[in-house]
């Protein structure tokens, strides 16, 4: 309940931000945070709750961006361009899901990494030209709809995970993570639950890709398939607290803001810091910032 309250205050202040400022840099930072929340949370659904380390998350982000960009630039209304983007990403996820889930643990991770690289290289070869928003659209480019679209997506994504996890299906997903054999023995189909988590995760990632295609003025199509998107999602989830609803949100905020602050002075330096932090979290603090916070609080409560 407390978390829900904090979430509402959080969302309200983000929603009200454009009323108080028109500073482009702040609004752009907002878009980046919201996109990061969707990326991290969607990764967390499969990686944190279902326990499947997907190192090919960028592939689905890229597919969503590719489809939405093509449709939207071609004249389709935005909403009708976003949905097919998410659907294509999900469909691709389901197609590769059946064979990929025959792989366990690390093999799933390296398999998905290989798959995403195949897609990235192929797209780079097929579409070598930069993609730019048409001049007419560019003249009326406004950051506000981008801001609210991505904010809405971030809320949607967090809500989906928050509602799914306590449900019967959500319990099944977590049971599969803890022990596949035991879950199967109690009548929970491991494959079906993993596929469901994968479908939602990839659809949300595709949706984020679509929003990126709507937001970013010009980029190489290959860029949206870059493993950096996957790596960001993994870092944010783990640093914030993998397998919790609020962890990836905190991770995304922390990551994007710190990255922007560091970028001013020390380009590339942020990855040294986050990489080190990530290793420390994996080794010594598997619950991330969320766990660190609750143990600090427990210390104070006990102090009373």
């Amino acid at each position, binding site marked *: 309940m407390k978390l829900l309250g904090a979430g509402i205050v959080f969302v309200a202040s983000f929603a009200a931000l454009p009323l108080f400022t028109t500073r482009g840099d702040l609004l752009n930072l907002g878009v980046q945070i919201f996109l990061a929340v969707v990326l991290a949370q969607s990764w967390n659904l499969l990686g944190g709750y279902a326990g499947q380390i997907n190192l090919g998350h960028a592939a689905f982000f890229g597919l969503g961006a590719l489809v939405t960009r093509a449709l939207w630039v071609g004249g389709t209304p935005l909403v009708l361009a976003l949905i097919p983007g998410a659907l294509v990403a999900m469909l691709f996820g389901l197609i590769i899901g059946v064979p990929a889930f025959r792989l366990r643990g690390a093999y799933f991770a*390296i398999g998905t990494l290989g798959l995403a690289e195949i897609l990235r*290289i*192929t797209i780079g070869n097929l579409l070598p030209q930069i993609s730019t928003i048409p001049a007419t659209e560019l003249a009326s480019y406004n950051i506000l709809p981008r801001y609210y679209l991505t904010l809405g997506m971030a809320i949607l994504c967090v809500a989906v995970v928050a509602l799914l996890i306590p449900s019967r299906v959500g319990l099944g997903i977590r049971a599969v993570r803890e022990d596949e054999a035991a879950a199967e023995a109690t009548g929970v189909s491991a494959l079906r639950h993993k596929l469901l988590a994968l479908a939602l995760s990839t659809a949300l990632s595709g949706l984020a890709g679509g929003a990126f295609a709507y937001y970013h003025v010009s980029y190489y199509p290959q860029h949206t398939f870059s493993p950096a998107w996957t*790596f960001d999602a993994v870092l944010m989830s*783990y640093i914030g607290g993998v397998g919790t609803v609020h962890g990836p949100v905190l991770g995304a905020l922390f990551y994007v803001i710190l990255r922007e602050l560091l970028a001013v002075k020390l380009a590339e330096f*942020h*990855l040294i810091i*986050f990489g080190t932090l990530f*290793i420390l979290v*994996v080794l010594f603090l598997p619950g991330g910032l969320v766990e660190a916070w609750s143990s600090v609080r427990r210390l104070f409560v006990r102090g009373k």
Partner: protein
Amino acid sequence: MILTQQLILGLLVGGLYGLAAAGLSLTFGVLRVLNVAHGELLMLGGYGTFWLFTLWQIDPFVSLLGVAPAMFVLGLLLYWALFQFVVKAHEETRIKNSLLIGFGLTLVLHALAIRLWTADERAVTTAYAGAVLRLGGLAVPWLRLTSLVLAFAILIALHLFLTKARWGRAIRATAEDWEAAALMGIPVGKTYSLAFALGTALAGIAGGLVSVSYAISPSIGLEWTLKALVVIVLAGLGSLFGSFAGGIILGLAEAMSVVFLGGPYREVVGLILFLIVLVVRPQGLFGARA
């Protein structure tokens, strides 16, 4: 003619794939630790060679004598600082956590390399770099041929170490069953650190050879890690010469793809092979043991 020429080049680069894979296969097979930063370690070895050549004009083949021990020490440090915490967990967690730690290490080393050496491509260009052995109408670059022979020689030396030397036998015993090895009085922790350091040194040597015949940049890590993984999946674990053969098969497959599909798809062919083998043998890389 073009095909034969490409196959020769594929064979030559394949030896380096094999060398890179042998290092990864050693750490994976012995420690059950999947170090995805292997390609970044290779990249560091390449920059070590590049530095020694650029700063002090040391011949790259001579500088390997310095790079290999330095990488060995780096491997020891990485083991003591990071991977020793992972090997205590049981099999599934161990592989997964080592993957995550390797992944973090990847990011750190990549960013560090950009700061130290910029993102530009570098290569060691020696006076004899252009020398070519002519066989009829075919050209065999001497440097690459030397690298291939050297890679093979290093694997033979390592094979002798693993089969004949006391510590080598300790490594093999630990790979087979670490609990039994511990009961026989083998210090498992030390054996692990030795195997990890050897794997790192192999990556460094491979990197040095890559910087001589090809080019290095901070972002080659992922590509080489994937190559090593492809070879391991193709060849299986546990045999150094298997890795070498697997590397050459990958090199030849890539060469064919260059001829028939065009250069840009050479990576794709290896990765598709990799996915097919992974899915057809879902028990993974330990298939032969299970």
